[in-house]
């Protein structure tokens, strides 16, 4: 499957089926972050259930220093 992750085109192995799988693949599961799938904010409790689809636009954002 191929998706756009934070603006970058990436290929994912077939084993990755959900948002949670994606986060684990990148070792992000314990980070404080917010996930958007095709402009829809995904509730953290739903990471396990939310299926990834080919061509999905995923944004993973977090808090950084700012004024």
């Amino acid at each position, binding site marked *: 499957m191929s998706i756009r*992750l*934070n*603006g970058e085109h990436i290929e994912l192995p077939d084993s990755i089926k959900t948002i949670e799988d994606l986060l684990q693949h*990148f*070792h*992000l599961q314990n*980070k*404080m*972050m*917010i996930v*958007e799938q095709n*402009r829809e*904010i995904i*509730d*953290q409790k739903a990471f396990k259930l939310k299926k990834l689809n080919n061509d999905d636009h995923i*944004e*993973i*954002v*977090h*808090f*950084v*220093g*700012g*004024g």
Partner: protein
Amino acid sequence: MLKIGKKSFQSRLLLGTGKFENFDIQKQAVEASGTEILTFAVRRMNVFEPKAPNFLEMIDIDRYTLLPNTAGAATAEEAVRTARLAKASGLCDMIKVEVIGDDRSLLPDPIETYKACEELLKEGFTVLPYISDDVVLAKRLESLGVHAIMPGASPIGSGQGILNPVNLQLMTETMNIPVIVDAGIGSPADAAQAMSLGAEAVLLNTAVSGADNPVKMAKAMKMAVEAGRLGLEAGRIDKRSYAVPSSPLEGLSIIE
């Protein structure tokens, strides 16, 4: 006591978290400032570097109220999207609405800011818009229902201090929501002046993070904000054109 929406704070200094040299200095500066409110920006995570440290992981976030901003937004729509993302973190429902309308001055776009506030209030956010020192806009936003107003003292990061103290005082004297002076503060004197003019609080970042010694400056800003506020509550003397002696005029015969 500073009250914003439903929350109350002892400290009247809000600290930005951008541009510190390293997390250790930043942590010490946050501590020295005595702040209870920290601002943040919302950005894409570098997913290819999961081990990159994040300041939020280094502090006890239960001790602080997080005030994310919508910096980077140029339209109301972008600001609302950023605000929703920030709220989805589950860490905060306050948002500093920052919609920049001009890249050179970084001055906020009043119309897009107003529109963003309107939508975010409907969605139940605690809304703090960053605006120019525009008294009428401040009042319109107050009528809309925002929880505090954050007029800039001078352009972001410029350190020029309060360019229009008259407008600032017009706001603090007539508004019923907190006026928090944001942006442009350069020195402790500026922070004290803002408080003397009746601001309920001051938000600053570069003045501390860019100082030669950020930790000392954080402490100086804490003291300046407290001094300015205390002075306001104490009530300063009127200015006069002529001298008024401080020593008594009676008993002067010894030098006659």
